[in-house]
């Protein structure tokens, strides 16, 4: 059971990512992206990182995916048919070639390196209380910086997306 659960979630994640890559309809892409993000959260939880998994589900499947759906609705093309007919085969083939080469390089590195094939050690326990203590003591500076960065980026996003005032 401990073997099967992360594998199922990993397959769900990859299936969602493939669907987001190949589907034509933008709304379908965004919805399959929810599956990919939630599956990744499931992988985290089944690997013992409960807090990171819950944060993944809340922020990605709950926040970022909804943001993407709203952006898709706001950025509707008036002539969607036109985009779909103009497939440039040169771009398509070179993109597929680059992606395949990157995957082959990564897979060769992973499979040829030693020390990665050990059996799983006993599952570490990540207590949320201990994570909070670490975050408020050792990592207090990154936490504050992330807070400032999130505030600044949200204000910046609102200002960028605002309509420009008429002169």
């Amino acid at each position, binding site marked *: 059971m401990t073997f099967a659960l992360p594998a199922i979630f990993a397959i769900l994640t990859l299936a969602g990512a493939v669907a987001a890559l190949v589907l034509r309809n933008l709304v379908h892409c965004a919805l399959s*992206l929810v599956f990919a993000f939630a599956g990744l959260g499931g992988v985290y939880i089944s*690997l013992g990182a409960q807090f990171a998994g819950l944060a993944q589900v809340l922020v990605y499947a709950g926040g970022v995916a909804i943001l993407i759906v709203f952006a898709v609705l706001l950025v509707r093309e008036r002539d969607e048919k036109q985009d779909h007919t103009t497939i440039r085969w040169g771009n398509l083939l070179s993109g597929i070639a*680059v992606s395949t080469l990157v995957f082959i390089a990564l897979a060769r590195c992973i*499979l040829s390196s030693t020390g990665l094939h050990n*059996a799983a050690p006993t599952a570490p326990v990540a207590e949320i209380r201990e*994570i909070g203590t670490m975050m408020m003591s050792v990592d207090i500076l990154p936490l504050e910086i992330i807070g400032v*960065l999130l505030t600044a980026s949200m204000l910046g*996003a609102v200002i*960028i997306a605002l309509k420009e005032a008429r002169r």
Partner: protein
Amino acid sequence: MTLDILLLVSAALFTLGLASSLLRRNAILVLVGIELMLNAANLNFIAFWRFSAHPEAFTGILFVLFSIALAAAEAAVGLALIISIHRFYKTSNVDRIDRMKG
């Protein structure tokens, strides 16, 4: 589930994100590809934390938490930029946004 299988899953997810940002012409799907690549990196952090010799340090989990916060900020600014560009060019096709092309 051993570490190398998790790393292979992460490599596949990274490749799918790279393909999505290279092949799709819609700006939103380019951003989605970038998000998928970030998620693949996060999966690597969690996998190395799970199989590390000192998992009680929580370094991987804390890094992933900060990375998720950064990705959320990046997605918000990126989508705001796409909406603003769409208002100006009336398109979100990245091939047609070529005013600064040399």
